[in-house]
């Protein structure tokens, strides 16, 4: 008996001591253990990413390859075109094939028109934001119960957190403001098109917000067992709206990026056109880049008569220009030499009657210089003599300068003041030195045009081509993101137990009804999004 009782006494002792000494221990519960264990893989699974994230990564990888292929084409074009470049006609043809230039058939808009368009865009943004506020109010409706359970409170905070991330249209607004502040010379007809596109996108966003508001209002009407799904459906609707909004913001960013890149290309094109105008190779209307290609085609064809220069080899043109600049430089050096000699002779006192004789060599040098600038022979705008229009005076500095200096020296020679004559001679030397700089610039215009052309070959169509690629990739990525939202919708319904509720509740809703509601929540704005594109 003594031996039989030993285990019982042992157990009794353990039982009496156990509750006091081992409060930290617990009785094993399989269900709780499973619940606790589920938390870990859940977090792990979210960390490692999902199928859709992998798809987006793969898409990014493919996008990079698309870009690489496009850049290979550009490299090929660089090699092919540089080997084909012999005449300015070829160079101008290449410029006129540039997409950015071709895409500008309209006139440059006025700053008033741009400001008006920006005003309309700002109004569209305000309108879209109002629609978004209506959506937010609709989401909050029925969810703000003071005596709500803790879980409901959590749902409210999740909804609030999701809503907070919506409606950031700052990037659109900033882009518009950037255009408004831009130098008017950089504004192109494409600027107006870009603003119109932004207005369309903002309008589409407003439509999307309105469509989601209508859908969420429908969720607010859900009664009975279906009301249990309301929070879940709202979450799905918000996440789906986020995907839609992000898509349109990405499209805006792609177009804004294209405009910024195009502005650089247009800057290069304008530089090139300016040089062509100075070299008198294309006589187009200043301030109207669109007329450049018409004028270039006319010059290359027979519309303006037979023009030799566009068909002249660039290398020959350079030789001619260097030769011409050499002659002008020689004339200027001669004028300066004579002027300096006259100044040195004026160190001793001279009677006014000898003034004219003193400056005659300088006057002759000036007249020779003027004679050498024959409007029929000039190959650079600097040489031209256009006296008729005062506004064009700035365009003919060489001949105008020589002509003015000649008049000034003649007048001073007839004067009785030695001081005036000396001043006139000094001014002539200064003017000729200034013209030497211009002559150097004149020669440098050809290499500048060639290097600008080289930059255009390297970058030319890239902004437009890459924008097209980016847009195609964004459409693909958008499709993946929408699929991810749909998958997330089903995860949400399962995780909240709504589906279980639907399956097991006596006389409850069918699982197919739940599926339909979830699908509707994740697809609400698909149709307007497609239409607006």
């Amino acid at each position, binding site marked *: 008996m003594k031996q*039989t*009782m*030993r*285990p*019982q006494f042992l*157990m*009794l002792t353990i*039982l*009496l001591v156990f*509750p006091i000494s081992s409060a*930290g*221990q*617990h*009785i094993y519960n399989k269900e*709780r253990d499973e*619940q606790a264990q589920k*938390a870990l893989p*859940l*977090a792990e699974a*979210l*960390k490692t*990413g999902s199928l859709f994230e992998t798809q987006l990564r793969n898409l990014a990888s493919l996008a990079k390859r698309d*870009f690489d292929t496009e*850049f290979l084409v*550009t*490299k090929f074009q*660089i090699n092919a*075109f*540089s080997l084909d*470049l*012999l005449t300015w006609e070829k160079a101008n043809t290449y410029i006129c094939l540039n997409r950015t230039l071709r895409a500008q058939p309209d006139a440059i808009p006025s700053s008033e028109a741009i400001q008006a368009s920006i005003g309309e865009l700002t109004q569209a943004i305000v309108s879209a934001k109002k629609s978004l506020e209506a959506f937010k109010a609709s989401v909050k409706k029925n969810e703000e119960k003071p005596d709500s359970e*803790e*879980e409901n409170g*959590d749902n409210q905070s999740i909804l609030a*957190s999701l809503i907070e991330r919506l409606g950031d249209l700052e990037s659109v607004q*900033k882009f518009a403001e950037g255009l408004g502040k831009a130098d008017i010379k950089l504004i192109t007809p494409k600027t107006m098109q870009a603003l119109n596109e932004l207005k369309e996108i903002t309008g589409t966003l407003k439509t999307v917000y309105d469509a989601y508001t209508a859908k969420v209002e429908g969720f607010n009407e859900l009664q009975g067992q279906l009301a249990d799904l309301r929070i879940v459906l709202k979450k799905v609707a918000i996440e789906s709206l986020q995907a839609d909004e992000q898509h349109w913001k990405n499209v805006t960013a792609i177009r*804004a990026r294209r405009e*910024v*890149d195009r502005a650089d290309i247009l800057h290069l094109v304008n530089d090139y056109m300016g040089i062509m105008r100075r070299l008198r190779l294309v006589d187009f209307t200043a301030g109207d880049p669109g007329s450049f290609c018409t004028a270039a085609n006319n010059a290359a064809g027979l519309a303006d008569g037979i023009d030799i220069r566009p068909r002249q080899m*660039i*290398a020959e043109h*350079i*030789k001619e220009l*260097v030769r011409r*600049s*050499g002659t002008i*430089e020689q004339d200027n050096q001669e004028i300066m030499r004579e002027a300096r000699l006259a100044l040195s002779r004026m160190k001793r006192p001279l009677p006014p009657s000898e003034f004219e004789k003193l400056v005659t060599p300088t006057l002759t040098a000036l007249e020779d210089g003027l004679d050498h600038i024959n409007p029929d022979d000039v190959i650079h705008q600097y040489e031209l003599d256009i006296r008729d229009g005062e506004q064009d005076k700035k365009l003919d500095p060489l001949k105008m300068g020589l002509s003015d200096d000649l008049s000034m020296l003649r007048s001073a020679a007839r004067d009785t003041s030695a001081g005036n004559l000396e001043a006139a001679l000094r001014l002539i030397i200064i003017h000729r030195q200034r013209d030497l700089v211009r002559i150097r610039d004149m020669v*440098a215009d050809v*290499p*500048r045009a*060639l*290097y*600008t*052309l*080289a*930059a255009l*070959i*390297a*970058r030319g169509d*890239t902004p437009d081509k890459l924008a097209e690629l980016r847009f195609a990739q964004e459409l693909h990525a958008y499709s993946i993101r929408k699929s991810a939202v749909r998958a997330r919708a089903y995860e949400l319904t399962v995780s909240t137990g709504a589906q279980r509720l639907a399956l097991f509740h006596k006389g409850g809703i069918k699982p197919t009804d739940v599926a339909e509601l979830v699908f509707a929540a994740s697809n609400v704005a698909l149709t307007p999004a497609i239409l607006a594109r």
Partner: protein
Amino acid sequence: MKKLLLLLSILSLVFLTGCDDENARNYAKELVGVLKSYQTEVNKKIAAEQKSYKDLAATHAYAKQVDLISGLRTERLRLADSLADELQHGDDKITPSDIHKMVADYAHADFAATRRLFEQESDGQAEYLASLEALEMQSKNLTALTKALQELAKPKSKIKQLKDLAGAAEKFKGKLDELQCEEIAQEIACLMVRQKQISDSTTLTDPQKIDGLAKIQTDIDRLIELSTGQKCNETKRKGTQCPDKKGQ
């Protein structure tokens, strides 16, 4: 005595189960609070990062672009000026192939310099987005974990508690019976070892041996009867060995 033990056991279990569950729930509840606070911080961090990006990234990207483009423009002007000087004052004449080379060389250099710029994401925020997405993911993880812990923090229903208690008591009784059977089997095995020692003894007389063996057999029979009453496994009982100390 056994009834008293069982009663004590059940009372202890009631106390133990209630205590355990409340502690675990409180622990989970505290963790939920901590997680929520952490999640709030993470959300704040995300918002701060986004604001930081908006304020600075556009300026940085623009400055980088201007630096590159204006640098290339300066380089073109430098090259053109250099060539103009050579043409104006040098003896060398430029040929069409020189022009081809000049254009191709610069175009390739310009292409290499601008390619990275063109390849950048539309809004130049890829790196920022990557870090923001990681934070968003962390926030989602926290939401999932919070939910899991909330499940653990919920009190059980009364019926569920009773069910759990009944289940625990049943498991407890089963284990107690198993331990008792094991104890009885060991006692029997040790008594049998003792019987063998008496039989093999050279110091005891035969009558002493008979008397000793009979007493031990009485104990063995009583223990076997107890084992049968407890529904102990007979095979297991027969296979049980006497621990060393018990046989001594």
